[in-house]
């Protein structure tokens, strides 16, 4: 999996280099006399390292960005937030970073990867999901602890798992999961394939799965809210375009797309 990310990164670097060189030749041929390096026109490539849970919304926003700013191209690297921070601290070239929790963004701040403070742009909460039709009749968070119910959650080491732990502490309900997955998508997979009776995933994951799962919201989820921050990276080779992408995400258009996917506004 690591190697796939590596190849993806290598490809995006190649795309970046190719993108830059072609846009340079373009601008050189059109504006032959005055090649001002401080041009304010937004062109070139923007590489965005984004948390995996943002895949569908950010892909849509990327397409919109390219349409609104002809001559630009947005490349994404979607992965777990901690993976992305690790890649960035190891020198992976990128322009924008978004994580699914404040912890990982703090790591990026501590590593001196940012030029300015990150901006919070979305909130996500947990929901119970069951196979379609809720065959076990689960109605509350406490029902997950009833004997004979096979529950799958995220491991405490990943953001969705730490949110699960917080809810457990707040409610005093101790779960005995049959599996603690390392990614929220693996939890969802165990539910859509009917392996487990119930799982805890983000509201947005449940939305994305459509009618393959039944979502059962529970009030205690408000005790564990994940905040999504976004920031332009210090090493960005295209900071103007990067900032414009951040503006799109935090602006009304971005908020509309995020809200449609189930994210709450910060």
């Amino acid at each position, binding site marked *: *999996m690591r190697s796939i990310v590596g190849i993806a990164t290598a490809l995006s670097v190649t795309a970046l280099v190719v993108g830059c060189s072609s846009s340079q030749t373009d601008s050189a041929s059109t504006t032959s006399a005055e090649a001002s390096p401080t041009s304010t026109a937004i062109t070139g490539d923007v590489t965005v390292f984004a948390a995996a849970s943002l895949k569908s919304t950010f892909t849509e926003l990327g397409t919109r960005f390219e349409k609104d700013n002809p001559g630009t191209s947005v490349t994404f690297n979607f992965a*777990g937030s*901690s993976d992305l921070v*690790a890649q960035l601290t190891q020198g992976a070239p990128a322009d924008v970073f978004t994580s699914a929790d404040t912890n990982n963004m703090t790591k990026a701040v501590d590593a001196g990867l940012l030029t300015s403070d990150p901006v919070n742009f979305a909130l996500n909460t947990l929901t119970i999901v069951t196979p379609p039709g809720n065959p076990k009749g689960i109605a509350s968070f406490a029902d997950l602890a009833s004997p004979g119910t*096979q529950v*799958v959650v995220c*491991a405490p*080491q*990943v953001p969705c798992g730490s949110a699960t732990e917080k809810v457990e502490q707040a409610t005093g309900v101790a779960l005995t*999961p*049959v*599996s*603690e*997955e*390392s990614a929220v998508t*693996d939890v969802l*997979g*165990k539910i859509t*394939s*009917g*392996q*487990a009776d119930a799982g805890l995933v983000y509201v947005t994951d449940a939305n994305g799965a459509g009618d393959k799962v039944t979502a059962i919201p529970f009030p205690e989820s408000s005790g564990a809210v994940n905040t999504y921050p976004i920031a332009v990276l210090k090493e960005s080779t295209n900071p103007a375009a990067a900032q414009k992408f951040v503006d799109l995400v935090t602006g009304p258009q971005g908020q509309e797309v995020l809200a449609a996917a189930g994210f709450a506004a910060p």
Partner: protein
Amino acid sequence: MTAPRRNGGLIQVGLPSWVYLPATVGALFVIVPLVAILLKIDWAHFIPLITSESSVAALLLSLRTASASTAVCVLLGVPMALVLARGRFPGQSALRALVLLPLVLPPVVGGIALLYTFGRQGLLGHQLDLLGIRIAFSTTAVVLAQSFVSLPFLVVSLEGALRSAGSGYEHIAATLGARPTTVLRTVTVPLVLPGLMSGAVLAFARSLGEFGATLTFAGSLQGVTRTLPLEIYLQRETDADAAVALSLLLIVVAAVIVIASASRRLTGPL
């Protein structure tokens, strides 16, 4: 090096010297990343990191499941290799291609295939449920996943050994009146024992490293389904030092297996 040398009547053909350059690059490509892991180890905390409760549970589970799946591979793989190497029936080559398919499949695909076979709503899931057998999220699921990806390794190496051993001695034994089972027990199996051993070692090593199929099919719970590779993957999320320490542990276990089997091959029968 390129000039032929005489040595006890046999002409020794040396390797062309240019071969050493790509061979060195290839060796470095494998060795340098291993050295990089060694350099990254936090030696002060190494022992506490690999003896933590979760690490020990993962190591023991890995050794247990890899041994069990190697046993499954030997029990099923030896007859499969015999049929493929010695049997003659229509569709044999197609069957060989099919049973060796997990060799080239990404393990995660194997995991999905197992899920839709042995999973609760899988092809056989309902029947198994009626028998009271629950495979999902159990250690059995881990062994199934490991056996699925490792079986072809044993079949391939044993089939190769059977083919290169030929069936001459078997024919002689048969003409001397030995029944097929006697031939198999006293001639064929002893003849290909080194091939069987190296096939079993390969299967064990492949089981030990199994990740994708286990993650997809069995889940991840300490002491039950979270094997060493899954523990490394999870630790990496929060504690890179622990992940590196466990990686070294896995490398050491794998190296011990490879070295033990290599020395066995040198000193063993044949």
